[in-house]
């Protein structure tokens, strides 16, 4: 039982990170029907930017909380800038092109970002500065570390802000209108280009936060770290129903839990034929199963719209 609950805590932590990244995929897909495969690399960029900035600010003698806050702000600004550049220079010119063109572009951008990061940060694993969040509490045999608490709390806060923006603000209303009927939105005075850019901005800002979280959690940064994370977050978005915000969160949490439980129990169940290193197989087996049996995902729509 203790193992189960422990894996639950670990899984939810992982799930929070997947959820934040999955939201970026789903926001852009919801408005453009584009899978932005470069999104995972924005998480990597967020992690490496915050890593470097934090080191810099700590060198300057800025106290740790201030250095973390400034590094996060810098990483968010950097990721948003790159996200906007991708939209403006790569995706917008292809908006009328066949679907395959922006998809291939996205894969190309992903490689460009990775190799660009390798040029800047090198190909070695980089140690993430210690955020002093390693202390932990024990609740009835279950260990919860401070970083897990910060990830959970931060995710909750961001989700609240995001849902408010999308569902309560006029900017969010304009974004949803753009997603549902772009021509009608324009006819009502909505600058749909701005709505689309905003989806990239929000996704990139969330990716930067997720980058800092994942770097701090595993205490490592590497130019390829966005690849697997991006694929899994994409899986989470599909699992929840791509284009659906609540679905992305649910998909992220479910995927994180399944992975953690898989890692915890796979060895026992299979008499150590498969170990915890097969946990990634879980994620993708799940993706394939969803695509075969329920392609619209847990919360996705599949009923045709009444016009």
């Amino acid at each position: 039982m203790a193992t189960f609950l422990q894996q639950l805590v670990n899984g939810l932590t992982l799930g929070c990170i997947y959820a934040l990244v999955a939201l970026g995929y789903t926001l852009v897909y919801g408005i453009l029907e584009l899978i932005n495969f470069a999104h995972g690399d924005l998480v990597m960029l967020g992690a490496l930017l915050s890593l470097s900035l934090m080191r810099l600010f700590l060198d300057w003698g800025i106290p740790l909380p201030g250095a973390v806050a400034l590094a996060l702000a810098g990483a968010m600004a950097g990721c948003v800038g790159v996200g906007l550049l991708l939209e403006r220079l790569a995706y917008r010119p292809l908006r009328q092109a066949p679907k395959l063109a922006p998809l291939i572009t996205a894969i190309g951008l992903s490689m460009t970002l990775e190799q660009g990061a390798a040029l800047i940060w090198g190909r070695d694993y980089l140690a993430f500065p210690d955020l002093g969040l390693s202390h932990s509490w024990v609740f009835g045999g279950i260990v919860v570390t401070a970083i897990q608490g910060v990830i959970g709390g931060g995710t909750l806060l961001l989700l609240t802000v995001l849902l408010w923006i999308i569902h309560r603000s006029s900017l969010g209303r304009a974004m949803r209108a753009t997603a549902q009927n772009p021509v009608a939105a324009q006819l009502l005075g909505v600058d749909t280009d701005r709505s689309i850019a905003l989806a990239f901005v929000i996704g990139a800002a969330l990716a930067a936060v997720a980058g800092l979280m994942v770097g701090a959690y595993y205490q490592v940064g590497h130019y390829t770290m966005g690849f697997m994370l991006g694929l899994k977050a994409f899986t989470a978005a599909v699992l929840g129903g791509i284009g659906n915000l609540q679905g992305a969160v649910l998909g992220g949490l479910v995927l994180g839990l399944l992975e953690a439980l898989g890692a915890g129990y796979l060895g026992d169940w299979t008499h150590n034929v498969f170990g915890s290193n097969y946990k990634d197989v879980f994620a993708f087996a799940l993706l394939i199963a969803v695509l075969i049996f329920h392609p619209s995902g847990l919360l996705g729509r599949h009923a045709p719209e009444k016009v």
Partner: protein
Amino acid sequence: MAEVLLAVAGLTVRYGGIEAVSDWSLILHAGEKVALIGANGAGKSSTLKALAGVVTPAAGKVSFAGVDWQGVPAWKRARAGLTLVPEGRGIFPRMSIEENLLMGVPQNTTSSRETLAPVYERFPRLGERRGQAAGTLSGGEQQLLALGRALLTRPRVLMLDEPSMGLAPKMVEEVFAVIEEMTATGVALLLVEQNARRALKLCPRAVVLESGRTVFSGEAVECLASPQLRAAYLGD
């Protein structure tokens, strides 16, 4: 004579090799009501779309209240006071009725919820169901929603594309009553309508399109008096 609101000269719209609108011109004054009549494929919808800026014309000049609209995007045209209710109504099916209406309220007005009150008063059905997804409304109710929303944009020129299409006769009457109310306050109207008889009753001026060209432009009574036009468009 009232101010010239919309001036169109030599408008041409092409889709691939097909010319939908050819060298088309129109002068629309403030408060003027014009019915745009023509068979399917005569270029009526293409004309409205080009004026609204959602279709880029191959040639021609459009100016609004004296401002040249070359290259002005659709959303800016809408904010300037040209509102098109497109064919199919253009509602947001997964947004609530209230949110659909709020999309019509100009961005810089703050007390947006109070501005909805007159719409709910005029259309109690929409008020009762304000929290419901707009996609659950019937076709006629969706058309009323689209008209109510267009009213909130405070248009100077209102363009309606087939507002009565696919509606039950009783609903057609209601839709026309609403259009009449909406334009009674001096809003200029450009109305594309299959139901030519009904459109000519509402609009004092008629323009008849054939293969993207104007074949008649004049008073509605003249149009109703012409045997050829009656035979072609009024089924006499």
